[in-house]
C-alpha cells in the first residue's frame, strides 16, 4: 500500500514546488537554507537532489538571514525557506538586510490561515505579513499553483536585481491543512 505523503494528503497540485525550484535555478540561487515545514517538503527534496545547490538545514530561521548575507558578500545568491511561525524569530536579524542592502529572498509557507487545526499557529500566522512589512520585507502572496513560477520570479528580481528583501508567502489554501491524523 502506498504511504501518503504530506502533500498528497493535503491534496495540493504536484507542480508548484517544481516550478519554484525551476525559478530558483534560473535566478542562479546557489545556497538554500531551511527550517522545514510540511508545505516545503517537496521543494526541500528537490533542492537536496540538485547538485548545483548547497543546502543548509538551520536550527532557527534567523540563521538563514546571516547565511544569505555571507553568500552575497561572497558573490552567491541564497534563498531561505521557513513556515510562518519562523518569521517571528527573524525580526532583529532583518536589520542585516535593511542596513547592508543585501538581497534577501524568503519563501514562507503559511500556517494559521483558513482551516488551521492548531491554535498555536494562529497568532504568528496572522502577524506574519505585517511583521515582514515592518521589517522592510516586500511581500508577494502566492495563492494559486499556476502563479508559482511568475511570483517567485518577481520576488527574485526584486531581491537580486533590486538588492532588497522579498518574501513569497505561500497560502495554506495551496499547501493544504495539516490534519493531525496518521500516517505522517
Amino acid at each position, binding site marked *: 500500500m502506498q504511504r501518503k505523503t504530506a502533500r498528497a494528503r493535503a491534496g495540493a497540485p504536484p507542480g508548484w514546488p517544481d516550478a519554484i525550484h525551476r525559478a530558483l535555478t534560473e535566478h542562479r540561487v546557489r545556497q538554500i537554507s531551511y527550517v522545514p515545514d510540511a508545505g516545503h517538503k517537496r521543494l526541500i527534496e528537490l533542492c537536496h537532489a540538485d547538485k548545483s545547490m*548547497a543546502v*543548509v538545514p538551520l536550527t532557527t530561521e534567523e*540563521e538563514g*538571514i546571516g547565511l544569505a548575507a*555571507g*553568500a552575497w558578500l561572497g558573490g552567491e545568491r541564497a534563498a531561505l525557506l521557513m513556515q510562518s511561525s519562523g518569521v517571528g524569530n527573524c525580526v*532583529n536579524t532583518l536589520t542585516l538586510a535593511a542596513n547592508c542592502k543585501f538581497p534577501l529572498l524568503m519563501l514562507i509557507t503559511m500556517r494559521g490561515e483558513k482551516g488551521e487545526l492548531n491554535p498555536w499557529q494562529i497568532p504568528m500566522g496572522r502577524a506574519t505579513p505585517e511583521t515582514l512589512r515592518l521589517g522592510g520585507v516586500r511581500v508577494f502572496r502566492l495563492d494559486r499553483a499556476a502563479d508559482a513560477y511568475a511570483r517567485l520570479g518577481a520576488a527574485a528580481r526584486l531581491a537580486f536585481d533590486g538588492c532588497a528583501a522579498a518574501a513569497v508567502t505561500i497560502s495554506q489554501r495551496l499547501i493544504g491543512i495539516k490534519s493531525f491524523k496518521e500516517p505522517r
Partner: protein
Amino acid sequence: MSAALQRRDVVKALLKDRGDILVVAGLGSSAWDCTAAGDHPLTFPLWGAMGSACMIGLGLALAQPKRRVLVVTGDGEMLMGLGSLATIGVQRSGNLAVVVLDNERYGETGMQKTHTAYGVDLAATARACGFVKARVIRKGTEVASMRSDVHHGRGPLFFQVKVRPDSPPLALPPRAGAHLSHRFREALLGRSAATE
C-alpha cells in the same frame, strides 16, 4: 579567572600578514579589535544583528571555498547564535575558522557576566557539534599555532580565547552597512560586483 591574554594582541597576531583571508567581525569589542588591527575592505564588521557572525562566515565560506574565512567574535555574540555551531557542524566547511574572544562579559553594556563566566564551555560545544578542532587558548605561547591553524588548517576550527575583561580604546569601523558590503564585494569580486 586568570586570563592573561589581551584581546587586541590576539587579534593583531591573527591578522598580521593576513594574506587573502576574509574576516567577519562580531558586533562590539570584536569589531573594534579588528579595526584596531587595521581597517580592511575584506573585513566585514557588524554593528548589529547579534548572533549572526558565524552564519555570515558560513555563507561566505560556502560561496568562496578557495578562500580562508575567519569569524572573530565575542562570547556574548556567540552565545546568542549557539545553534549556528550545530549548523556549521553539518556543513563541515574546511575553510572556516571561528575565534571567540572570551572575556566572560558583555563588554558593551556594563560588563555583566556571560554564561562562560559560570563555566559554560563553548569549545566543548563546538567539538560536540563536529568542529574538527575546538580548543581553549589561555597562553600567549599558544597564539602562534592558533594563527597557523586559522590561516592553513582544515576546518571547521573553533578557538575560545580567554582574554582579560578590559576595555581598550574604541577603534570604530565605518558604520554604514551598505558601504561595508559594497566595499567587501568590490574588493573580493571586482568592479563588476556592483552591476551583477
